[in-house]
């Protein structure tokens, strides 16, 4: 195994061993290039896509930001896997030149995969998937890899891969409202003092401390979202986000959905797309 990927041993140790279950976890072969390597991991009930990256390189969240794109995994060559889609861990922010920003992961990441796995009792399951991904430092390099994974018919023993996949799944952003410890989040769009549209996300209550809160949005069809301006207050967290309409030829609808992820709490929290009123908001500052 390549010595360029030494971080893996340390990473495996850092993950909670308590999460180990009796499911047999296996890992497919790494498909490697100079910047990164990728493989499938999984067991009879869960799958994941694992990356390890050379220092400085990163792969992307589902909204990659101003550059990049998220990995795409195509299981169409494996009929036993249906409706597969990547689940995205809480991202971090990468500042690029000229004020641009992208969202993703560095060093190592496991994307859990949501899928329907057709049970094949008593037989091994051979999976293959085509992966298209972009890995960036200053430069970006697109890669395609054909990944394989064989899940044996019978579970023999607990395996670290299952534990690591379970840990990655457990670390996914928690759906808003899933636990009373998470703050309650509300969103509101209103004109700012200068007339431009502004989205306010406020999070109140809950028992979690915010260490270094950050806020990420899925890409939005109507607005370019500015960098969230964070304000801490006694009652909780408050973010202000400038909204710039992307299309002046179409009137704004009465409501629009925002899907958000707040990180830097004890757990990241994500809000599913939920409608926010735009009705009656007419004060839009046109771009310069």
């Amino acid at each position: 195994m390549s010595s360029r990927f030494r971080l893996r041993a340390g990473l495996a140790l850092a993950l909670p061993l308590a999460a180990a279950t009796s499911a047999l976890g296996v890992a497919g072969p790494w498909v490697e290039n100079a910047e990164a390597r990728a493989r499938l991991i999984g067991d009879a009930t869960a799958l994941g896509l694992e990356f390890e990256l050379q220092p400085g390189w990163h792969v992307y969240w589902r909204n990659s930001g101003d550059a990049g794109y998220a990995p795409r995994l195509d299981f169409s060559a494996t009929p036993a896997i249906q409706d597969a889609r990547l689940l995205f861990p809480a991202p971090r922010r990468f500042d690029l030149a000229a004020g641009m920003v992208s969202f993703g992961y560095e060093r190592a990441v496991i994307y859990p995969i949501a899928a329907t796995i057709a049970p094949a009792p008593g037989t091994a399951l051979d999976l293959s998937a085509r992966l298209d991904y972009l890995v960036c430092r200053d430069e970006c390099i697109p890669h395609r890899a054909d990944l394989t994974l064989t899940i044996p018919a019978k579970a023999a023993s607990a395996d670290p891969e299952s534990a690591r996949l379970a840990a990655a799944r457990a670390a996914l952003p928690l759906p808003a409202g899933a636990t009373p410890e998470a703050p309650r989040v509300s969103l509101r769009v209103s004109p700012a003092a200068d007339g431009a549209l502004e989205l306010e996300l406020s999070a109140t209550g809950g028992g979690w401390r915010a260490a270094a809160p950050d806020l990420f949005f899925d890409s939005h069809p109507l607005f370019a979202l500015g960098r969230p301006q964070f304000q801490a207050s006694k009652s909780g967290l408050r973010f202000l986000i400038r909204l710039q309409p992307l299309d002046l030829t179409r009137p704004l609808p009465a409501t629009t959905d925002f899907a958000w992820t707040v990180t830097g709490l004890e757990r990241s929290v994500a809000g599913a797309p939920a409608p926010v009123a735009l009705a009656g908001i007419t004060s839009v500052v046109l771009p310069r």
Partner: protein
Amino acid sequence: MPSPVRSLRFLVLLVAMLASSRVVRADLAVGALAPAFELTDLDGKPVTLADFRGKTVVLEWINPNCPVSRGYADRKVMVRTAAAHPEAVWLAINSTARKHGDYLAAAEHKAYDVKRGIAYPVLYDTSGEVGRAYGAKTTPHMFVIDESGKVAYNGAIDSGPGATSTNYVDAALTALANGKRPDPAVTQPMGCSVKY
């Protein structure tokens, strides 16, 4: 003697202005007037947007040293799309800063273009001024400007890698040729960041 408050305010404004001129502006909205420009092609010949008033114009942000941009060029995606739409003017703009390692001198750029069948003009924007004015973020990043000089499409060339990719620029040009508005008119551009 100016008041301290006023000079402070001026200073803040000045800093904000200096900062903003170096920053890629927020997205250029569909329906907004496409910013005018005067650039030079690889032969040093001036080309202005105004040269093509009344025509549909496609702007492609290009960087031969960006593997994503190069991949599209190798697959001739832009060349084929341009060939399918002779009614539109196709211009590539390279906003790579001269000091960046990705910068390509004219002779090398020409060789790259010839090898890939790129016959449309490639314009240098080494100051990045035009790229910033358009909010060009990635290579490739595509803009379609309609006959009235307004932005009609802003985003990716297509829906990305994979067998089921949709060519958004082809769809936008077809819509405009049929007197319709592009739909989608906005997508998220994908690729390397522009090397300002």
